[in-house]
């Protein structure tokens, strides 16, 4: 018995110095396992007197607790060391670029078009499409541009076989809108338009416009300005923008306006971007000409409206300070890939 107690004495040291988790386990089994030394000593207690039994029991219990605590401490140390080792071994160069597919980019025209579509849809405007090859009637006559009108000289038209043409503006969709919807209605029509122009850094024969139209009983210049300000604040990501209307001549509106926005580079004090005027010409707009309403099947005595046209290609160029319009339809991924990624 005394010998066995002596073994217990050395056990603590053995647990504390076990070199491996396996040896630690072996010492644990030997000392405090189900058939270990403590268990064996407990079995021998029956031969002791009651007084001795109490004293020995207490002693054994204390020894067991001590050994168990030492075992657990040693075991935790092993676990912790193993974890440290693993962590150390798992070093990874996370600066290596990832494999797999990177997202592509939507065309910047698509992006700005989608933004504006979402804005107008939120204000109750429907999005309409029209054909790229149009009739002369829709592109000109129905917009109060009869064959003899000098305004036809202002736009260089591509004519195609069959007497049709490539639409020179998105305005013919106004006519289609009036033919499609019952008033009151609000619509926008983004799309590709064509002008017979030589291409250079600032001229394109193919570009994207967005037409807008609202028809209701009482539509005023004040309403038009409201929507234009809302639109431009959104496009330029501002709380508010300063705009001005000045007279502009377009046969399908009366009165017609050029809408200028206060230059955002110089805030109106004058700089090269605004040619020192403080203003940048942005979009033509106006109240729908009564003749256009009539040709669209609406009674101008009952209905009125406003219309505007926005050059999306130009907006994209302004937004990103793109100096050459030819990039837009170039299909060059060195240009297009720059427009990817989420933006808030």
């Amino acid at each position, binding site marked *: 018995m005394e010998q066995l107690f002596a073994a217990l004495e050395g056990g603590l040291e053995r647990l504390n110095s076990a070199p491996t988790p396996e040896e630690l386990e072996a010492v644990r089994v030997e000392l405090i396992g189900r058939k270990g030394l403590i268990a064996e000593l407990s079995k021998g207690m029956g031969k002791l007197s009651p007084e001795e039994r109490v004293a020995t029991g207490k002693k054994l219990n204390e020894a067991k607790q001590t050994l168990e605590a030492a075992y657990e401490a040693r075991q935790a140390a092993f676990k912790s060391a193993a974890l440290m080792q693993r962590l150390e071994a798992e070093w990874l160069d996370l600066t290596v670029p990832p494999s797999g597919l990177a997202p592509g980019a939507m065309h910047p025209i698509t992006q700005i078009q989608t933004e504006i579509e979402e804005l107008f849809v939120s204000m109750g405007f429907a999005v309409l499409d029209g054909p790229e090859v149009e009739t002369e009637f829709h592109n000109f006559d129905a917009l109060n541009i009869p064959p003899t009108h000098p305004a036809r000289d202002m736009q260089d038209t591509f004519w195609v076989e069959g007497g049709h043409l490539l639409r020179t503006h998105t305005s013919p969709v106004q006519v289609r809108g009036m033919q499609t919807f019952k008033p009151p209605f609000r619509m926008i029509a983004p799309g590709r338009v064509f002008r017979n122009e030589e291409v250079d850094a600032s001229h394109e024969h193919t570009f994207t416009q967005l037409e807008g139209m609202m028809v209701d009983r009482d539509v*005023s210049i004040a309403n038009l*300005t409201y929507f234009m300000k809302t639109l431009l604040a959104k496009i330029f990501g501002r709380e508010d923008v300063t705009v001005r209307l000045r007279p502009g001549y377009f046969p399908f509106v009366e009165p017609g306006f050029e809408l200028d926005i206060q230059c955002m580079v110089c805030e109106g004090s004058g700089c090269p971007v605004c040619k020192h005027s403080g203003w940048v010409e942005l979009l033509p707009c106006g109240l729908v000409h009564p003749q256009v309403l009539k040709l669209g099947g609406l009674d101008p005595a009952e209905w009125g409206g406003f219309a505007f046209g926005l050059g999306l290609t130009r907006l994209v160029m302004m937004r990103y300070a793109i100096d050459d319009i030819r990039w837009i339809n170039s299909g060059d991924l060195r240009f297009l890939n720059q427009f990817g990624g989420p933006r808030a």
Partner: protein
Amino acid sequence: MKFSRNWLADYVPGLTADGAELGRQITMRTAECEGVEDHAPQLKDVCVARVESVEPIAGSPNVKAVVETGRYGRKTLVCGAPNCRAGLLTAYWPLGVKKIAGVGSEGMLCAGDELGINRDHNLIVELTDVAVGDPLPGLVPDAVIDIDNKSLTHRPDLWGHFGMAREVAATFGLELKDPTDISLLPSGEPQVNVQIEDFTLCPRFSAVVFENVKVAPSPLWFQYRLQAVGLNPINNIVDITNYVMAELPQPMHAFDADKVPGQTLIARAAKANERLEALNGETYDLDPSMIVVGGLDGPLAIAGIIGGDPSAIGDSTTRIIFEAANWNPVAVRKATVKLKLRTDASMRFEKSLDPENTLRGIARAIALMKLVCPEARLAGGVADVRGPAVAPAPIRISMPWMAKKLGRTIGQNEVVSILEALGFGVTSANGELEVTVPSWRATKDISMDADLVEEVGRIIGYASITPTAPRMDVVPPKINRERAFHNGLRRHLTHVGFTEVHNYSFVADAEARKFGFDPADHLRVLNPIAEDQALLRISLLPKIWKNIDDNRKHFDQFRLFEIGREIHKRPEGLPDEVPHLVAVVYAKDDGVAGLNQLKRLALDLLPEASFRAVAGVRSFEHPARTVAVMAGDTSVGRLFEFHPSFVEVGRAAVLELNLRTMEKLATGRTVAYTAVNKFPSSSFDLAVVVDARALAGDVAQHMPGAVFIEDYRLPDGRRSLLYRLTISRPDRTLTGEEVTAERTRLIEHLRAQGFELRA
């Protein structure tokens, strides 16, 4: 169109605004000002000087002159003009001392071009009846306001200074002074016989004869005024016609009366094969769509465009006919296009000028003759022939209506005073205004109430209108499903690594042929910019191929796509514009990853898609790597690799989908949810042995629900296609016997189809 600030001020005597302020106000109220430039600012320093003495400079064509300037004292300077002579009164410009031909020159004596008077550069100006040291009479610095012609398209009245002066007067609330004195028109029998053959071609023709005319240069102040607005002074008679054109605006023409046979002018259509040698030295072939001023022997002028050389004013001219006519704007415009000749006159006639201006023009010419050709005498009365005049119907407007259109209230008095300042007649009746349109606004500009909103709005200033949200019904807009579908596709494609391109709709004949498309199947542009942009695309592929060819120079691999319209001819009506999607994966290295990715993409976009062998491949498709993309028996597009002769370096895989078909298939596609089975399922694998070039798609269609696991090549060259079938029942667990029975049934079914199964 250029406007002289000083000229405008002639008709608006109270005007104090400078050129820049005028430019701003005109932009905000009337038409777009493109710029304002000082004209001859040096005139504030220039004065009259007398040449006292002249001596030659050895070895130089110039002379050394001593001049008395009065204002600046006696000066010595170098002058190169051959007319520099002692006693000459001329213009002196004090400039710093500058060494010329070895002589210190204290300033310069000026030629006409140096003072903005005319284009004379050779001779210094010669002055009479002036005092040394005085400013040059009638010549003061001016500002030239350049107005965008396009913004004047609808305003014939603004092609002259008087019209613009009316706008300026209304804008600043100043009085307008009319320069025209109709009482100057002589009465009596005209000395010129005027005839109009067709009043639609020539609504009005007025003329008058002057005799004892001395053709000479105009006075300098007169030349100066024309030069400021870009009209070159010629001689006093021609200058008068240009002056009246730039003033009223009424283009005029002066004939040498002695070269007009029978003193007869006939406004008529040109005859076939008529020709005219014009003032510009060119000879023009005329046709009956053009109008001429004819004489008894043939055309004398192309109406509204240019005069003829044979009847032109020359130095020896002593009798002239002033013509002021009104011409059909469309005929003039068409003639300018045919003749490729636009003139200051034709630009104005195209805009539908006021027929009332012809007599006013004659009256102005008479007044100006007194100033620039005082010797001349009127001969006979004014000839004035016109067609039936139609007075424009008055326009009725109410104040509530005006306020509704403007979006702000406005007092009746304010409306009346604005309209009256602009020359409208206004009477008030029954709470409405009855507005009479003045003749210069009635030719096409103003005909209805909406036009008056603009008149009032622009003069009160649009800045006075507060932006206001409209009252409108809250109605969700109709969704544009096609666009929503396309945008969804765009989002998906960019998420999985494709970049969107936009390509032109034009292709060249050669490009179409290269792809095996018949140019005759394309809609042809009749007036293309270039021959290689003459066809409208019936396929996106030619330009997509170009994208590949361009981008592979910069990238070893890339993915791109386009959503665009194919334009297909139809026998009648507008062509069919069919939206298509083309997606491309290009990689420089060899492999089938691109085709795989596009196959994945096809299934992502169209879950029911299957791939089927095609009967024939197109010339640009890899013959062994092309399949049709099907939805059941509906063809939706193609999946292919570009033929190696089209893409020589690397491989370009292409997925081409008809989005109209795709959208139809996607419409109404819903999720048919079934409850997740509580009972376990059982799986078994089947390996089907096929020939090396069999299609897995042909096997799979006999095993609905089978999941493809592996394509294993056997030693004999055939392939083993491994599929996993998973079966279950919603109400119980399948027994082993049932699973075996199903497996056996399937094996027998496949064998019956001629497939061999691997043990």
